[in-house]
Protein backbone atom coordinates (compact mmCIF):
# COMPACT_ATOMS: atom_id res chain seq x y z
CA UNK A 1 0.00 0.00 0.00
CA UNK A 2 2.66 2.48 1.05
CA UNK A 3 5.88 2.35 -0.87
CA UNK A 4 9.10 2.81 1.02
CA UNK A 5 11.23 5.47 -0.61
CA UNK A 6 13.77 8.18 -0.13
CA UNK A 7 11.81 10.50 2.18
CA UNK A 8 13.72 13.59 1.12
CA UNK A 9 11.38 16.15 2.73
CA UNK A 10 11.53 14.57 6.17
CA UNK A 11 15.28 14.04 5.94
CA UNK A 12 16.00 17.62 4.90
CA UNK A 13 13.69 19.17 7.49
CA UNK A 14 15.10 17.08 10.32
CA UNK A 15 18.66 17.85 9.23
CA UNK A 16 17.88 21.56 9.41
CA UNK A 17 15.94 21.24 12.66
CA UNK A 18 18.28 19.05 14.73
CA UNK A 19 20.97 21.73 15.37
CA UNK A 20 18.31 24.20 16.51
CA UNK A 21 16.78 21.62 18.85
CA UNK A 22 20.20 20.96 20.34
CA UNK A 23 20.87 24.69 20.71
CA UNK A 24 17.54 25.07 22.49
CA UNK A 25 18.41 22.15 24.75
CA UNK A 26 21.64 23.89 25.72
CA UNK A 27 19.63 27.04 26.46
CA UNK A 28 17.28 25.07 28.70
CA UNK A 29 20.22 23.55 30.58
CA UNK A 30 22.04 26.89 30.97
CA UNK A 31 18.95 28.81 32.12
CA UNK A 32 17.74 26.06 34.42
CA UNK A 33 17.91 28.29 37.49
CA UNK A 34 16.04 31.27 35.94
CA UNK A 35 13.29 29.66 33.88
CA UNK A 36 11.53 26.28 33.76
CA UNK A 37 13.81 23.46 32.83
CA UNK A 38 17.19 22.34 34.00
CA UNK A 39 19.45 19.38 33.52
CA UNK A 40 16.81 16.71 33.13
CA UNK A 41 14.56 18.63 30.75
CA UNK A 42 17.45 19.84 28.63
CA UNK A 43 18.81 16.32 28.50
CA UNK A 44 15.45 15.01 27.36
CA UNK A 45 15.36 17.59 24.54
CA UNK A 46 18.92 16.66 23.52
CA UNK A 47 17.93 13.00 23.52
CA UNK A 48 14.81 13.82 21.49
CA UNK A 49 16.97 15.44 18.84
CA UNK A 50 19.05 12.25 18.59
CA UNK A 51 15.85 10.19 18.44
CA UNK A 52 14.60 12.38 15.58
CA UNK A 53 17.87 11.77 13.74
CA UNK A 54 17.52 8.04 14.34
CA UNK A 55 13.92 7.97 13.06
CA UNK A 56 14.63 9.92 9.91
CA UNK A 57 18.13 8.77 8.93
CA UNK A 58 18.12 5.18 10.13
CA UNK A 59 20.42 3.03 12.19
CA UNK A 60 23.58 3.10 10.08
CA UNK A 61 23.85 6.90 9.85
CA UNK A 62 23.34 7.46 13.58
CA UNK A 63 25.60 4.58 14.56
CA UNK A 64 28.39 6.25 12.62
CA UNK A 65 27.91 9.58 14.43
CA UNK A 66 26.85 8.54 17.93
CA UNK A 67 27.06 4.82 18.56
CA UNK A 68 25.67 2.98 21.54
CA UNK A 69 29.10 2.57 23.10
CA UNK A 70 29.57 6.34 23.03
CA UNK A 71 26.10 6.75 24.57
CA UNK A 72 27.08 4.46 27.47
CA UNK A 73 30.36 6.39 27.84
CA UNK A 74 28.47 9.71 27.91
CA UNK A 75 26.04 8.52 30.57
CA UNK A 76 28.96 7.46 32.75
CA UNK A 77 30.68 10.81 32.16
CA UNK A 78 27.49 12.61 33.23
CA UNK A 79 27.27 10.67 36.47
CA UNK A 80 31.00 11.25 36.99
CA UNK A 81 30.54 15.03 36.65
CA UNK A 82 27.65 14.98 39.11
CA UNK A 83 29.30 12.83 41.75
CA UNK A 84 32.68 14.44 41.12
CA UNK A 85 31.34 17.88 42.05
CA UNK A 86 29.66 16.31 45.07
CA UNK A 87 32.86 14.68 46.28
CA UNK A 88 34.85 17.82 45.56
CA UNK A 89 32.59 19.58 48.07
CA UNK A 90 33.28 16.77 50.55
CA UNK A 91 37.03 17.20 50.05
CA UNK A 92 36.68 20.95 50.70
CA UNK A 93 35.23 20.15 54.16
CA UNK A 94 31.57 20.68 53.27
CA UNK A 95 28.60 18.37 52.92
CA UNK A 96 27.98 16.32 49.80
CA UNK A 97 26.92 18.78 47.01
CA UNK A 98 27.44 21.77 49.33
CA UNK A 99 28.40 24.07 46.44
CA UNK A 100 29.24 27.12 48.52
CA UNK A 101 32.49 25.44 49.62
CA UNK A 102 33.65 25.52 45.99
CA UNK A 103 34.59 29.20 46.39
CA UNK A 104 37.98 28.05 47.70
CA UNK A 105 39.05 26.79 44.27
CA UNK A 106 36.89 28.98 41.98
CA UNK A 107 38.11 32.29 43.50
CA UNK A 108 34.62 33.85 43.60
CA UNK A 109 32.36 34.58 46.55
CA UNK A 110 30.24 31.72 47.99
CA UNK A 111 26.97 32.85 46.34
CA UNK A 112 28.54 32.76 42.88
CA UNK A 113 30.19 29.43 43.66
CA UNK A 114 26.77 28.02 44.57
CA UNK A 115 25.33 29.16 41.23
CA UNK A 116 28.27 27.73 39.26
CA UNK A 117 28.13 24.46 41.18
CA UNK A 118 24.45 24.00 40.37
CA UNK A 119 25.24 24.73 36.71
CA UNK A 120 27.97 22.07 36.69
CA UNK A 121 25.70 19.50 38.26
CA UNK A 122 22.98 20.30 35.75
CA UNK A 123 25.42 19.83 32.86
CA UNK A 124 26.28 16.40 34.28
CA UNK A 125 22.60 15.48 34.65
CA UNK A 126 21.96 16.66 31.09
CA UNK A 127 24.75 14.45 29.71
CA UNK A 128 23.50 11.41 31.61
CA UNK A 129 19.82 11.86 30.73
CA UNK A 130 20.60 12.45 27.04
CA UNK A 131 22.75 9.36 26.77
CA UNK A 132 20.42 7.11 28.74
CA UNK A 133 17.35 8.25 26.78
CA UNK A 134 19.13 7.61 23.51
CA UNK A 135 20.43 4.26 24.74
CA UNK A 136 16.91 3.14 25.76
CA UNK A 137 15.56 4.16 22.36
CA UNK A 138 18.47 2.39 20.67
CA UNK A 139 17.74 -0.84 22.54
CA UNK A 140 13.99 -0.71 21.92
CA UNK A 141 14.28 -0.03 18.20
CA UNK A 142 16.97 -2.65 17.53
CA UNK A 143 15.55 -5.26 19.91
CA UNK A 144 18.65 -5.16 22.10
CA UNK A 145 20.78 -6.67 19.34
CA UNK A 146 22.62 -4.28 17.07
CA UNK A 147 22.63 -5.19 13.35
CA UNK A 148 26.44 -5.38 13.41
CA UNK A 149 26.34 -8.18 15.98
CA UNK A 150 23.82 -10.09 13.88
CA UNK A 151 26.08 -9.90 10.85
CA UNK A 152 29.01 -11.25 12.86
CA UNK A 153 26.88 -14.10 14.21
CA UNK A 154 25.87 -15.11 10.72
Amino acid at each position, binding site marked *: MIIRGEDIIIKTISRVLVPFIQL*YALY*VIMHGHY*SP*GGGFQGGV*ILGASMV*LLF*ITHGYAEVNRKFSENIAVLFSSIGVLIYSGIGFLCLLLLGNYLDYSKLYKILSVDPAHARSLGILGVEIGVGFAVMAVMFSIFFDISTGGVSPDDEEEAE
Partner: protein
Amino acid sequence: MNNFLIVITLALCLLVFVVLYRVVFGPGVFNRIAAISAIGTKTLVILIIFGYFYNRVEMFIDISLVYALLNFIGCVAAAKYLETEG
Protein backbone atom coordinates in the same frame (compact mmCIF):
# COMPACT_ATOMS: atom_id res chain seq x y z
CA MET B 1 -8.68 42.33 26.22
CA ASN B 2 -8.95 39.86 29.10
CA ASN B 3 -12.52 38.86 28.24
CA PHE B 4 -11.53 38.43 24.62
CA LEU B 5 -8.69 36.08 25.58
CA ILE B 6 -10.90 34.11 27.97
CA VAL B 7 -13.46 33.59 25.21
CA ILE B 8 -10.71 32.46 22.83
CA THR B 9 -9.33 30.02 25.42
CA LEU B 10 -12.76 28.51 26.05
CA ALA B 11 -13.42 28.19 22.33
CA LEU B 12 -10.08 26.44 21.83
CA CYS B 13 -10.81 24.08 24.73
CA LEU B 14 -14.13 23.15 23.12
CA LEU B 15 -12.42 22.65 19.76
CA VAL B 16 -9.95 20.24 21.39
CA PHE B 17 -12.90 18.00 22.26
CA VAL B 18 -14.23 18.25 18.70
CA VAL B 19 -10.84 17.10 17.40
CA LEU B 20 -10.66 14.42 20.09
CA TYR B 21 -13.70 12.82 18.44
CA ARG B 22 -11.59 12.39 15.28
CA VAL B 23 -8.80 10.80 17.31
CA VAL B 24 -11.10 8.23 18.93
CA PHE B 25 -13.49 7.36 16.08
CA GLY B 26 -11.64 8.68 13.06
CA PRO B 27 -11.40 6.23 10.20
CA GLY B 28 -7.82 5.26 9.50
CA VAL B 29 -4.50 6.21 11.01
CA PHE B 30 -3.92 9.32 8.90
CA ASN B 31 -6.91 11.08 10.42
CA ARG B 32 -5.73 10.17 13.90
CA ILE B 33 -2.20 11.48 13.35
CA ALA B 34 -3.47 14.75 11.87
CA ALA B 35 -5.96 15.17 14.72
CA ILE B 36 -3.33 14.54 17.41
CA SER B 37 -1.02 17.12 15.88
CA ALA B 38 -3.94 19.59 15.70
CA ILE B 39 -4.60 19.04 19.42
CA GLY B 40 -0.93 19.75 20.09
CA THR B 41 -1.12 23.04 18.20
CA LYS B 42 -4.23 24.14 20.10
CA THR B 43 -2.64 23.24 23.43
CA LEU B 44 0.33 25.38 22.48
CA VAL B 45 -1.84 28.45 21.89
CA ILE B 46 -3.77 27.84 25.12
CA LEU B 47 -0.46 27.62 27.01
CA ILE B 48 0.71 30.98 25.68
CA ILE B 49 -2.63 32.63 26.57
CA PHE B 50 -2.25 31.23 30.10
CA GLY B 51 1.19 32.80 30.17
CA TYR B 52 -0.41 36.16 29.40
CA PHE B 53 -2.78 35.71 32.34
CA TYR B 54 0.09 34.89 34.71
CA ASN B 55 2.15 37.81 33.31
CA ARG B 56 5.02 35.44 32.46
CA VAL B 57 4.71 34.99 28.70
CA GLU B 58 8.44 34.39 28.19
CA MET B 59 8.38 31.42 30.58
CA PHE B 60 5.39 29.85 28.90
CA ILE B 61 6.91 30.35 25.45
CA ASP B 62 9.82 28.16 26.56
CA ILE B 63 7.40 25.43 27.58
CA SER B 64 5.34 25.71 24.43
CA LEU B 65 8.47 25.51 22.23
CA VAL B 66 9.34 22.17 23.84
CA TYR B 67 5.75 21.07 23.34
CA ALA B 68 5.90 21.93 19.65
CA LEU B 69 9.20 20.09 19.20
CA LEU B 70 7.94 16.93 20.91
CA ASN B 71 4.70 17.15 18.93
CA PHE B 72 6.69 17.24 15.69
CA ILE B 73 8.91 14.33 16.73
CA GLY B 74 5.88 12.28 17.81
CA CYS B 75 4.22 12.98 14.49
CA VAL B 76 7.31 11.84 12.56
CA ALA B 77 7.59 8.72 14.73
CA ALA B 78 3.94 7.81 14.07
CA ALA B 79 4.47 8.31 10.34
CA LYS B 80 7.55 6.10 10.48
CA TYR B 81 5.56 3.36 12.23
CA LEU B 82 2.94 3.63 9.50
CA GLU B 83 5.62 3.32 6.83
CA THR B 84 6.98 0.06 8.21
CA GLU B 85 3.73 -1.58 9.33
CA GLY B 86 1.29 -0.38 6.67
